[in-house]
């Protein structure tokens, strides 16, 4: 095991070695992936990306099996497997191809469509052809906020499963500000909405942080419970006269009255919310890498006892980190309200909390990684909607793929085992969470 050098901290620094020297590398007699990824000249960022990328590929492959198993035509063909195996495989292949094709064109648009639209020069046509891309970005926007929230928590040693509840809490506050203040100048109103979401989420996130700091209550349980409480809180406020739309009897809030401007015309839902999301990614990166608070987060996350010995206060860090984490999720809720779903409804944030965990793991808790992962998952989610419309494959396949990605990214040894890649230097066991007492 000479190659496995422990002791180097898990790749903390950003991709500064990214532009390390190129060169061909290859060892004969190995699996293709191993050959491509292990040569001495392969840049380290390719090695670093190899596990996440292979995790995604493997998850998609397993997802394909699921499609083969559930698609009615392919299932019917399997009945005749022993009569005509080639036909069976062909039908299965077509089912998978159709589903994934619908998934990818739903996420990115069809290249020929975009090309023809641009050649025609008609702006409306161009906008239409770019709609899938715009939808991908729109789907990625709240994911970036939620993913950053969970990633920030991870860095401070906190496993925040409560992004969902924090997003709801932020959305409640943001909705209140969004529909009750009228007559304000738009930009100012937007700032207030964002601020309300930020504070609402911060408050909701600070509670588990405080409980952990004061009583040791594990944040995994408290944040999950806070999620459920937030669902009922949303249900409750939506039926109060303060929130409910006067003309409706179902639980739906009055719409907010200020919106992030559209970026590419009103045909596309693409809006400035994504810019705020990207800005937040930069802020989180700056916070983590360039400030004392960020240093304390990482120190406490790596070893709370050592941090305490060094004079830091893990308790204070837990509260601050959870509050900031919640604030990011809450901001995501506010942005969602002020861009694509102007009214708060039950199930406003269903699923973002789980998605966020996948994103933080996939992005290795780095803001840049989270953004990339959020675009990927946003593409899958946007694509899955068209896939469900075009084929018989249910949208929930994305959840399955997502869970598999989490497993493979959390257990790189599995991926390395499948593709016979050697462990990277420093790729020891990364401790992300601690036991109950922590």
């Amino acid at each position, binding site marked *: 095991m000479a190659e496995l050098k422990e002791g180097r901290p898990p790749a903390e620094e950003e991709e500064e070695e990214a532009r390390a020297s190129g060169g061909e590398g290859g060892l004969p007699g190995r699996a293709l992936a191993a050959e491509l990824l292990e040569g001495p000249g392969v840049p380290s960022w390719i090695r670093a990306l190899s596990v996440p990328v292979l995790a995604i590929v493997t998850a998609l492959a397993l997802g394909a099996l*699921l499609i083969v198993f*559930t698609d009615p035509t392919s299932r019917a063909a399997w009945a005749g497997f022993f009569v005509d195996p080639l036909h069976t495989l062909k039908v299965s292949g077509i089912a998978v191809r159709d589903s994934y094709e619908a998934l990818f064109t739903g996420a990115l648009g069809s290249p020929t469509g975009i090309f023809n639209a641009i050649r025609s020069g008609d702006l409306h046509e161009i906008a239409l052809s770019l709609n899938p891309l715009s939808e991908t970005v729109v789907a990625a926007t709240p994911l970036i906020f939620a993913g950053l929230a969970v990633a920030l928590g991870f860095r401070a040693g906190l*496993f925040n*499963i409560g992004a969902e509840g924090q997003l709801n809490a932020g959305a409640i506050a943001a909705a209140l500000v969004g529909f009750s203040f009228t007559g304000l100048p738009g930009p100012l109103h937007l700032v207030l909405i964002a601020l309300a979401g930020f504070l609402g989420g911060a408050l909701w996130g600070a509670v588990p942080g405080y*409980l952990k700091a*004061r*009583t*040791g*209550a*594990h944040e*995994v*349980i*408290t944040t*999950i*419970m*806070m999620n*459920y*409480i937030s669902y*009922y*809180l949303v*249900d*409750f406020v939506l039926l109060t006269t303060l929130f409910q739309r006067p003309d409706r009897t179902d639980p739906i809030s009055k719409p907010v009255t200020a919106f992030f401007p559209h970026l590419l015309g009103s045909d596309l839902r693409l809006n400035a919310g994504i810019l705020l999301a990207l800005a937040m990614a930069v802020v989180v990166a700056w916070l983590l890498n360039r400030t004392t608070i960020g240093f304390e987060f990482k120190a406490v996350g790596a070893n709370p006892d050592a941090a305490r010995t060094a004079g830091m206060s893990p308790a204070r860090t837990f509260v601050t980190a959870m509050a900031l984490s919640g604030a990011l999720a809450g901001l995501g809720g506010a942005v969602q309200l002020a861009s694509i779903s102007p009214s708060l409804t039950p199930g406003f944030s269903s699923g973002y909390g*789980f998605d966020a*965990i*996948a994103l933080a*793991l996939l992005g290795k808790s780095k803001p840049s990684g989270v953004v990339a992962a959020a675009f990927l998952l946003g593409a899958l989610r946007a694509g899955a909607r068209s896939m469900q419309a075009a084929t*018989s*494959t*249910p949208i*929930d*396949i*994305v*959840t*399955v*793929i*997502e*869970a*598999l990605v*989490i*497993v493979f990214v*959390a*257990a790189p*040894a*599995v991926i390395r085992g499948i593709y016979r890649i050697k462990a990277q230097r420093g790729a020891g*066991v*990364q*401790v*992300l*969470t*601690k*036991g*109950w*007492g922590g």
Partner: protein
Amino acid sequence: MTAVASDVVPAGASRRAAAVGVFFLIVAAMIVFVFGLGVPSDASSTFVLNPVQGGAIHIPNLTLPSRASALAIGALCAVLAAVQLVRGFGRRTNLVLGVVVTLFVVAFLTWAAHDKSFNLVGMLQSTLLLAVPITFGALSGVLCERSAVINVGIEGMLLAGAFVGTVIASVAGGASGAHILGGTPGEWLGLLAGAAVGALLAGLLAVLSIRYLVDQIIAGVAINIIALGLTSYLSIAFLEQNNALNAPGIFRDVKIPGLAQLPVVGPVLFDQNLFVYLMLVLVALAYVGLFHTRWGLRVRAVGEHPRAADTVGIRVLATRYRNVILGGIVAGIGGAFFTLGSVGRFDENMTAGRGFIGLAAMIFGRWNPIGAFLAALVFGFADALSTKLSILSVPIDSNFLLMAPYLVTIAVVAGVVRKARPPAADGKPYVKE
């Protein structure tokens, strides 16, 4: 945390004692002013002590004057508060705290039931029934964590057990056929299949956390998402178009001869379905097994000090695999309860966090099967209360009642975990040197 004699109380402890005393006072005031003076002076609360249907011996209803009972209970709380503030209950504080909370609940019930009748037996029956999945989840957690593997994937195992249980039971004949202990052959197969899928997911958790040293909490979360995604996906792909796959039938209640005739206790404990009996048996088995057998001693050794256990020849990893898979079987059966013991069909995400509440019950019960069961009863009671109260049209928004179990969980985890000590090696992978 050491027990402190009452004459040498450190500042922190006396501040806590004073805070507890003030809390008792607030409870007493609330009982007197809201539950006592908040009802008409001539109102009475009726508690029905017979099951909703059946019941061999009819017992007269218990009718209490609402205001007088609440005032009496309030006075009792005030006395306890005074004693706490003046002298303190010392190491019995927690017991008294439990008593005061119970008194509060009783006073609350007399208030909620004023001028109405409230079926106490029905309430206790549904408490026990609602405690079933929580107990199974908590037992699963106890089995895993006593061998030092944290199982956050209980929720997913419950959900998978519910799904597979319903499908297999429906395919294998559903509600038709002779009943054995209240279940048709199909339902029994569904139960076994639920246990099997629980074991399968637990096996995944075990391989990930024991062989691949994956962070156990993340592995558990991944199992939850896989279960949620797969069951939702398969339920849309198959169950929605084909209702015959989602008609498993429900285990019937089985009366235990003789015991079921007892007043109050009979209908609550001895006229239930298989899952309730299974739960009671499993709690006893797990308790005796863990604390009074050689197997249990070994498991606990592996959970507390794996290296020492290894040194004396206990196979640490094998023990962990075995316990995690056992835990999965228990959780899978608990999951099958949702479809085969309660609802009779599968709905997307129907477990609604019961697995996590089971984890909280495990912590509340201090990693002890009996403690976990009692904690699950508390959660079951909160659950049952929230549904019963909405029937009584209590002037509290139903959403707040629905929040109650989750709020209780937070209170429990925050209030108790500090004093509860998990197995020393909990969550730490073991690598042989």
